[in-house]
């Protein structure tokens, strides 16, 4: 397949891997965080870690938008969905995520009308077709998906729809990275920057990571060779004593970002004072809410929201996994109480979460897998 297979070429990967190995100082340990869940998925799906030397470790960051939604927010969504005449819509990834009282699937089975959509515009279509119902779109995602939510709100207003609103759970990536950088037990040497988010916000906002924290960051694409090349670029920076923001994903990410997308986000949404992230706790200015001027499309003002708060079980160590302090398998409940079928913590919730990816794709020692697949 064109534009895909080129970035999955095993020969190029081997050459890049050899070059990566030659950049590593013997005896030095390197830990890089891939911020975005899409990268985590690519790493496991293609078995990319097989190409890395022993002393290069990848830490799976907080960039899975499904995973970071706190359980209380899931409960609040279900609460709205249970109101009379409500049709709740959301992306398929959210359907299985358990809140304090079960998942959307459970709520749907118990009678609520919760539907999967592929785009917020599909939710708008449902609103047009059901004028006697109240259609709510549970909006999730980083800056990547916020523009499509913003465009949907603008279109709903332009069409004069009165039965459509969004339950806004959009989060912003930079405060989460900053929270991780500020954590005292942090042990990271650099970041593989989120490619999709950067198509919107550009590369400039990461400057503080390189300048103030002295950590290199390379904005990376989502094919396996993109990630290998980004690791190569990070190691080159370290070898040369640099800490800069670089863009490996230039074929998609403009340095300045997408100004039109930023404009529509800014027109319809503003920062919340703070927002709870699963596994990371409350982070200041880390999420978006609907602006006053679009209050008519804000589910938080149309419905009574309980403001549910559900504590993650104490045994869950997602916070440590997200910060790279623990590997998934080092968590006490990993693989026993907490599995992809019954995810207790954020990292197990979606297939892009660090623990789910490890459980599904990487759950074996390299030696044993290599032995089995030999010959």
């Amino acid at each position, binding site marked *: *397949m064109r534009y895909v297979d080129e970035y*999955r070429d*095993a020969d190029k990967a081997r050459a890049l891997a050899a070059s990566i190995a030659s950049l590593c100082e013997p005896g030095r340990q390197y830990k890089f965080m891939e911020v975005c869940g899409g990268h985590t998925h690519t790493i*496991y*799906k*293609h*078995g*990319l870690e*097989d190409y890395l030397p022993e002393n290069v470790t990848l830490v799976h960051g907080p960039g899975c938008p499904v995973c970071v939604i706190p*359980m209380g*927010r899931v409960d609040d969504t279900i609460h709205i969905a249970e109101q009379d005449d409500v049709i709740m819509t959301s992306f*398929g990834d959210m359907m*299985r995520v358990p*809140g*304090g009282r*079960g998942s959307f*699937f*459970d709520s*749907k*089975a*118990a009678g609520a009308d919760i539907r999967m959509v592929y785009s917020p515009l*599909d939710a708008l279509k449902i609103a047009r077709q059901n004028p006697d119902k109240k259609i709510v779109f549970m909006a999730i995602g980083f800056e990547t998906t916020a523009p499509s939510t913003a465009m949907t709100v603008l279109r709903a207003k332009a069409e004069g729809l009165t039965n459509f609103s969004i339950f806004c759970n959009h989060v912003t990536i930079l405060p989460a990275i900053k929270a991780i950088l500020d954590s005292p037990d942090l042990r990271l040497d650099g970041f593989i920057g989120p490619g999709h988010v950067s198509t919107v916000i550009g590369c400039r906002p990461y400057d503080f990571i390189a300048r103030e924290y002295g950590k290199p960051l390379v904005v990376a694409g989502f094919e*396996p060779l993109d990630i290998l090349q980004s690791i190569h670029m990070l190691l080159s920076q370290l070898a040369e004593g640099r800490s800069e923001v670089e863009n490996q994903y230039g074929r998609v990410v403009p340095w300045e970002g997408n100004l039109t997308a930023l404009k529509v986000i800014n027109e319809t949404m503003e920062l*919340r*004072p*703070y*927002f*709870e992230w699963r596994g990371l706790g409350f982070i200041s200015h880390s999420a978006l*809410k609907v602006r006053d001027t679009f209050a008519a499309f804000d589910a938080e*003002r149309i419905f009574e*929201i*309980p*403001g*549910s*708060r*559900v*504590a*993650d*079980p104490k045994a869950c160590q997602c916070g440590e996994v997200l910060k790279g302090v623990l590997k998934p398998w*080092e968590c*006490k*409940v990993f*693989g*026993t109480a*907490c*599995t*992809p*079928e*019954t995810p*207790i913590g954020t990292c197990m919730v979606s297939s892009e979460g660090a623990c789910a990816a490890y*459980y*599904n794709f*990487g*759950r*074996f*020692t390299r030696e*044993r*897998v290599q032995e*089995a*697949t030999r010959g």
Partner: protein
Amino acid sequence: MAERPLIEGSAPERSADWAEAAVREHAHVETVSREEQVLERIDRARRARPRLREQNITLSHGAGGKATQTLIQAVFLHAFRNPLLEPLDDGARLSIDGASLAFTTDSYVVSPLFFPGGDIGDLAVNGTVNDLAVSGAEPLHLSAGFILEEGFPVADLKRIVASMRDAAAAAGVQIVTGDTKVVQRGKADGCYINTAGVGAIRRPLGGDVRPGDAVLVSGPIGEHGVTVMLARGELDIESDVTSDTAPLNGLVATLMDACGGGVRRMRDATRGGVATILNEVAADAGVAVVVEEDAFPVRPDVRGACELLGIDPLYVACEGRMVVVVSGDVADEALSALRSHPLGAGAALVGRIKDDPPGLVLLKTAFGGTRIVDLLVGDPLPRIC
């Protein structure tokens, strides 16, 4: 209207009861520190009898993945347990007055009812024919039960029944008994069909799956699932991919003629796709299944649609493809035999059976890495058959 921001303390913090219970359930597990020990602990947890936690049936229970298996184990097998049911194969193998028979049943709820390459009618015949064929039986007689919704067009029913007739003729089986029920408008979605079938087992399969065996697929994978998904028109993707729905009994006969004693196991790769079947093979025989991503035949448009949708073709349903495990020494003969039949022209050798790690499917990725292919959790594609 007052603003109600989500702020700390806006409601008293609760704990998630189900999560605390799950932690307590596993609290006896000793704390271990080495990765290998942890992986063994996980293996034990995986082998433990699954528990059904949900209060209501969810769509996941019908997806053919882990939730379906849990439901079958915890509800159906628990109530009906007997030696014939216990293997949980595509069909039961019975012996009646010295005759060896295979018996199977399947229900069809595909939406939409008509899709490129087929409809619910030929799906209902082929699905049951295939369950019998891969059990090693020659399919003979089928039943057909219809659940129809008030208001369903008779013209559509005639069209469905005509394709059942044609599919039965193509497979050489007869539909010999049936049933009809009609429910009120809104209580069903047009037309559901159940078929059951019996077949004669004339040639036994060649023993248990064991290390050294070869794994084959009979053709390109994922076409039915992608076709049905695109036919729903929700995705605005256009493609000329058509369903692979077809009766496999002719292909099975050709294979058995060429290397009968060497055929260990056959499964048609329906719901949950090839990956689910490979996991069942690994778990049932206590072996490792090692496959190569590159070796799987996948049509470019199926691959493209899967890339766009973020799903893996290994998990996408087929309705006319099977996974075959044969003794390693007849792998070439088996491949030639499959390819000699029109329905097996795209057959490929995709992997081998090994002894370690037991119960797992490992994939060598096209990129050159390795990963586990586990059972699917949840349901990306409901009502595909």
